[in-house]
């Protein structure tokens, strides 16, 4: 026997709802597995012939690799653009911003003597560097995450970056945010100049570390 009142006016607008429900279920039941990075092939000869500054960007969190070429310099930062408009902005060797590689990094501010911005040889790095990361959130104000990094100089070694061998020194940064979260950055600096050839840098709590290999350095005089 029916008791009480049967509800009315409670029905969801169902157009397209079932498909949505299915995708929602799939997303929850099948979380993204650990992804394997697809590293694109790099034609160094073509890049050198075109005289382009270029970087290889690897995003382990989404398994994506892109080759970006320098398209613009703005306020001393180089903007590299890849297929599908994925992009990265470098300030010296510091990853200043990312686009299309996950939860975008909008900007990074740092101290004036940040060795990632100013080429600094491994032994001459300041003991601590403090950087602030800006990430979009609700509203017009970006969320800010400030992290302080201490560094350790590691081994000297030769690495291959897009078919070229580079003599580098490894520097590991151990970083702690104000909220107590920890992450590491790993950099491979030119043994002679301190210029970055390969770097894996934290770019936010969701996107985490992104690796950048410098295929051809930007030369402002070129």
């Amino acid at each position, binding site marked *: 026997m029916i008791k009480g*009142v049967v509800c009315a006016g409670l029905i969801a607008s169902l157009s397209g709802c079932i498909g949505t429900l299915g995708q929602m*279920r799939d997303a929850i039941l099948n979380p993204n597995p650990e992804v394997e990075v697809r590293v694109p092939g790099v034609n160094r000869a073509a890049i050198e012939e075109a005289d382009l500054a270029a970087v290889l960007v690897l995003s382990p969190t989404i398994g994506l690799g892109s080759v970006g070429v320098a398209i613009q310099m703005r306020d001393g930062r180089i903007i590299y653009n890849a297929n599908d408009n994925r*992009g990265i902005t470098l300030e010296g060797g510091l990853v200043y911003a990312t686009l299309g590689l996950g939860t975008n990094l909008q900007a990074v501010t740092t101290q004036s003597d940040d060795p990632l911005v100013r080429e600094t040889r491994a032994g001459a790095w300041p003991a601590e560097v403090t950087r602030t990361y800006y990430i979009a959130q609700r509203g017009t104000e970006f969320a800010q995450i400030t992290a302080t990094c201490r560094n350790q100089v590691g081994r000297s070694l030769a690495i291959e970056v897009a078919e070229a061998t580079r003599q580098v020194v490894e520097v590991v940064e151990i970083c702690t945010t104000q909220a107590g979260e920890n992450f590491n950055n790993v950099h491979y600096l030119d043994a002679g100049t301190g210029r970055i050839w390969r770097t894996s840098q934290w770019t936010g709590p969701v996107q985490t570390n992104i690796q950048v290999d410098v295929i051809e350095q930007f030369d402002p005089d070129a």
Partner: protein
Amino acid sequence: MSHKPHGIALSLVLSSLLAAGAAAEGIGGLSQAIDTPRAPSGVADDFVILFDFREDYRALSLGLQPSDWLEIGISFPTYDDDAGSSSGNELSFGVRLLEEGTYTPGLTVGIVGFGSDDRGSGEYVLASKTFGTLSASVGMGWGRYALAVPEDRGTDDGVIRTDHLFEGDAAPFANIVWDTGVAGLVAAAEYSGIEGAEADETFAASLSYEVLDGLTVTGLVNNQGNAGLRLQFAANPAQSLAQENMGRGPHPYVPNTPARASQPQPTAAQVLALLNERAEKEDIRISRFVMEGDTIDVTASSDKDVVFARTVGRVARILSAVAPANITTFRVTQNTGAFDSNVVVLDRAGLDRAVGAPNAAELAWDATSFEASPRNRPEGLIADRFEPRLTYGIAPSFRADFITSDTLELTGTLNANARYTFSPQTFAAASVGYRFLNQWTQEDPPAEPQPRSDFTSYAPDIVYLQSLSVRHRFRIAPELYSRVSAGLFERAYGGVSGEVLWRDPEQNFALGLEATYVQKRAYEGWFGFEDADASTLIGSIYANVGTNGNFVILDAGQHLADDFAVGLTIGRNYRNGWRIAASTTWSEEETAPLKFGAEVSIPLSWTSVEGGVGATNLFVGGQSGDFGSRVSGTGLLYDELRASDKRRIEDGFGEFWN
């Protein structure tokens, strides 16, 4: 057994992920150990849906933590015991008054079932402390926390009482919750001074297992001979399940340097061609384009992106690269389907200053203003050529019904929908339904047709015509929107309806007025009417308040039972498309406790990197009583326009450069 006459009707559109399990008694959607409360353990915007199931008790509860210190819950319990069965509708609050310190406990107070005379109402005060993975609470409770069946609490002939709060019999309680750290297992144990059927005091234990991220099953047992299950779905709308912005990036922004002015400038046709080509790659459709003087004016939309600020930003990025140097203003019009609702005006020089800055979104917002779209605009290079079209589909819905059964019963309905769209402003639509799972038993019609309580007099076991109506929307003035509708709006009513809505794009509120004349639809057959009519006249204020996406909707006027009633809806919109709202209605004729409804919209883009503007919508509670009820299906204008609210766009403006 009989339900209370004011038993709330309840249903929920179920997704398959929520279709299994059931649970133990929930406490109005607030944080709890087992049956006793604990301090809020989540963070701001944590949202939870709970199914509780015991032999003599079932409940569906929704909880939201608007801030770190406040929890709000709405619960729809049904009780079944020797005295019969009854249904409740509980609004609950939990407030953390003191944060716990290194050596000091936190302090929390809670009120469950506020404004309700239901047996589930109660109050508590508790102190809590966390020790690593163990959290402990001890406190004192009143009402449901002191007695198995409390009585005479909450309301008195429709007047909300407060003199019972924290008064009368009280009993202590204590609980511990231990996150084992093993395979998502959480164990809890508790004591309460409630006397039960088999013991003077109650001891209970539970074990929870997180089956999947956000989905938890809990089993419990107590010394009063009760055992139960709880199914919990927890999420945080502010934290996407899918990583954002991992698809195609936006077009690189190109500042308008003086050097560009000396280069050859593109024509309007060339700009349009480039804009179309590049916008298409980003799933943005340009439906109107005008380049005149120092301004480019476009209408842009995305079928994939719910964040209009991001669509505007992507259009601006492309225009920065392809527009002639003399263009100083980009105007991006937002279209809702029937209306051009906003013109977002962007100052190009301001964007040049903003791009790449650590406060780029703030600077871009400073370079943005809003205008109402003019009713008549100059002919563009392209303008939408609308083709009339027929669309149709079949969609099943599943609901948990606590009212038509003593148990948690799954009901299923198949809906066939069709719409013929004559123009962007005008369409005719029909919906035919059939409840294929768990029909109700038809009751004799009442002597006088009622707005809602006679719903079970409609014939079950048949294919029925849910609605068949025509709707036309138009603008009277740039800021004055209007609608007329006619036909069968819902299963209970058909007639005519008109509405006017005023909204200024620069303002954070809108005003609406709807007048409707309807006839009660026949209990049998598709097209007949009963000898009963009604008219409603309802004014509405729609306001966005604060900076967290919060909104308030206030409706007041003559409702279906010829009663004056006031409806209040409060909720929160999220930049990613989530929407959570709760509502209640007070009527001058109503003597029962306040009833509450809730609405949750979960966008597809929150769960899938593929994006999309679709959403899963959940509705619980809502209008089921005869008083304070309005006709549904007329097509309220604000439902179409609310995505254009300035505050909604501002909320998403952090995504402008994404």
